[in-house]
């Protein structure tokens, strides 16, 4: 049973309550997922806080990392949404840091990956789209609906184009969340499968141990790839957030 659990690639995504909690009929227990959300924000906050504590004019290595992250996201947002978009800088920066740190923490063995759960990424995506919709209507009123009516489209095609635009807008939170969730989920399953091969092959004796070198090398290579994916997906999430926010600022194409 224990051995079976070890090679079960889905086991790592299971959620166990640590402190059971029920409010209004809902199970809102403090789970391992919640624990790693807390770990994520504590680690990220602590790093950003302590690395910049000295406020050095000439930054050290850690301060450079914090500054690079800050300017990286800042430039991303400025390029995508212009100067006006900078009011959303705290949102985009926290999203980027949260997703990045959650992805990176998930790479440690036995650690839970917060972003491998669709509900987490979907909630973040809804936060982004919600911000876009609320800000868009607050700033432009009904003019925000021009987002769905591109310029220069012949009247006959207009209903079709509008329908396509609406569908593409509605599918944004889905694509935004599924992209991150699926990458994390698939990457961790793959890693687990290859690591599982190493364990099962090693149990077959000398030949198995020799043969397990291959999946071990694969697991090492995949870990490097997952490190890249962890950063890339945080980047993609932040970039798309910037582009959607740009729509809220400038709805007419």
């Amino acid at each position, binding site marked *: 049973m224990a051995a*079976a*659990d070890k090679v079960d690639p889905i086991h790592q995504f299971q959620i166990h309550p640590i402190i059971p909690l029920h409010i209004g009929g809902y199970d809102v227990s*403090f789970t391992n997922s919640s624990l790693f959300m807390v770990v994520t924000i504590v680690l990220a906050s602590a790093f950003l*806080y302590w690395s910049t504590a000295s406020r050095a004019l000439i930054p050290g290595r850690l301060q450079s990392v914090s500054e690079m992250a800050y300017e990286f996201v800042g430039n991303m947002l400025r390029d995508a949404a212009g100067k006006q978009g900078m009011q959303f800088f705290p949102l985009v920066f926290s999203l980027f840091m949260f997703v990045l740190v959650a992805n990176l923490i998930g790479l440690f063995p036995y650690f839970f990956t917060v972003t491998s759960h669709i509900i987490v990424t979907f*909630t973040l995506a809804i936060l982004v789209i919600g911000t876009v919709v609320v800000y868009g209507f607050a700033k432009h009123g009904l003019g925000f609906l021009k987002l769905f009516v591109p310029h220069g489209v012949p009247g006959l095609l207009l209903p079709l184009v509008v329908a396509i635009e609406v569908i593409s807008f509605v599918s944004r939170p889905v694509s935004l969340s599924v992209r991150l969730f699926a990458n994390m989920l698939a990457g961790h399953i*793959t890693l687990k499968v290859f690591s599982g091969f190493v364990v099962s092959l090693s149990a077959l004796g000398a030949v198995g141990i020799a043969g397990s070198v291959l999946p071990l090398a694969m697991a090492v290579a995949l870990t490097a790839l997952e490190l890249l*994916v962890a950063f890339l997906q945080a980047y993609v999430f932040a970039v798309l957030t910037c582009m959607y926010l740009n729509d809220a600022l400038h709805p007419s194409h």
Partner: protein
Amino acid sequence: MFVTSAYAQETAPAAAEGDTHAGTAVPAAEHEAFPPFDAKTFPSQILWLVITFGLFYLFLKRVVMPRLGGIIDVRNDRITQDLDHAARLKGEADAAVAAYEQELAEAKANANKIGQQASDAAKADAEGTRKKLEAELEKKLGEAEASIASIKARAMKEVGTIAEDTTSAIVEALVGGKADKSEIAAAVKSASR
């Protein structure tokens, strides 16, 4: 592209393996959904995500980002300030070089003037000395010529006397007897003409 194809290849056996284990090892929990799609965990995850992400957002917005922005602004200000300072110093250095060059040019002009004056004075001095010397030489030359002329005249006069003496001696030796002195003088005079 590589990423997606690798995932596609590997998720299939992984899912198959997951199914076999779910089927054999945990029959009691067979009805349990795939964890990420288990809706029972959603309220807890949403709640804790909202709490943690909200705190994270506030902390970054209130503490970290003003600090990072401040650090970068201070650095940019400092760089601008240093560049200005450097530009000012360069201007000062340029001005100093210009002043130095001007002074050098002035000094050169002065030196040339002084040299010219000295050389002119020396030339004039030399000219004066030369003229004085020439005048003196001229005078001495004149005196010498005069003295030569007088010596010559005296000598010429003496030549006559010697000729007369010689003539009288020759006459005496050739003819015997004394010749008349006045005749000899007349003869000599006519011969020397």
